[in-house]
């Protein structure tokens, strides 16, 4: 690898901008069931905020923020959240992924709204973790664990 030159402009801009991108990504994931947005878009923005730190400040600081060994487990956890939402609805007497049987709210329409939220959280987590994991794998760099 090349020696990471300390460029004050890229360091400052990326470290100021990345938290706002992350906040906006979280907003898009968690408000995606009510306003435009959703898991795929929000997960991509979260991954962008992590990757911008890795690009500008180097992989060592990026590893402190999001270790690359967490990538694939978190992606699998996202799929598991989606799947277990469907299985919970099945357990409480509905069909698979029929959110109106989830034990979270009183009216079926609110239950389905919250079910969409759970599913979107799972999608966002999986998309973020997998995008960062693919970036790390393509870079071929690995921390020493």
């Amino acid at each position, binding site marked *: 690898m090349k020696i990471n030159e300390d460029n004050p402009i890229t360091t400052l801009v990326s470290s100021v901008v990345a938290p706002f991108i992350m906040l906006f990504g979280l907003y898009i994931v968690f408000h995606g069931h*009510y306003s435009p947005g959703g898991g795929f878009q929000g997960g991509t923005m979260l991954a962008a905020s992590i990757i911008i730190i890795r690009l500008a400040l180097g992989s060592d600081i990026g590893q402190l923020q999001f270790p690359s060994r967490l990538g*694939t487990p978190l*992606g699998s956890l996202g*799929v598991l959240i989606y799947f277990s939402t469907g299985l919970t609805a099945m357990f409480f007497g509905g069909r698979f992924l029929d959110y109106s049987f989830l034990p979270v709210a009183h009216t079926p329409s609110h239950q389905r709204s919250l079910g*969409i939220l759970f599913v979107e959280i799972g999608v966002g987590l999986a998309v973020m973790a997998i995008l960062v994991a693919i970036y790390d*794998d393509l870079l071929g760099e690995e921390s020493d664990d």
Partner: protein
Amino acid sequence: MKLVNFGIIILFGLLLIYASAGLPNRGDADAVLNREKSPAGSQNAAAYYIRKSYEDAHTPNMVTAILADYRSYDTLGEETVIMTAGLVCFLLLRKRRKDNED
């Protein structure tokens, strides 16, 4: 040969422009897609979603209601595809790196 290829491309471009003139206007209530019933007489899915998605899922975001509620099997498959892509990248790229080291 190059001239023939160029002519075919121009021809297809003209064909697409000609075909786009026959599309219905956006938001046209009388277009076949936006009608309550299809020409065969069955109910259109789009009309049902527009009318019922707020009652069913209590979200004004119709796209999300279709994506994650009515068509949630499809989204589960998409997410599984993304996870599989990540796993395959992990397996292929990490393995080769280790072989180079040994």
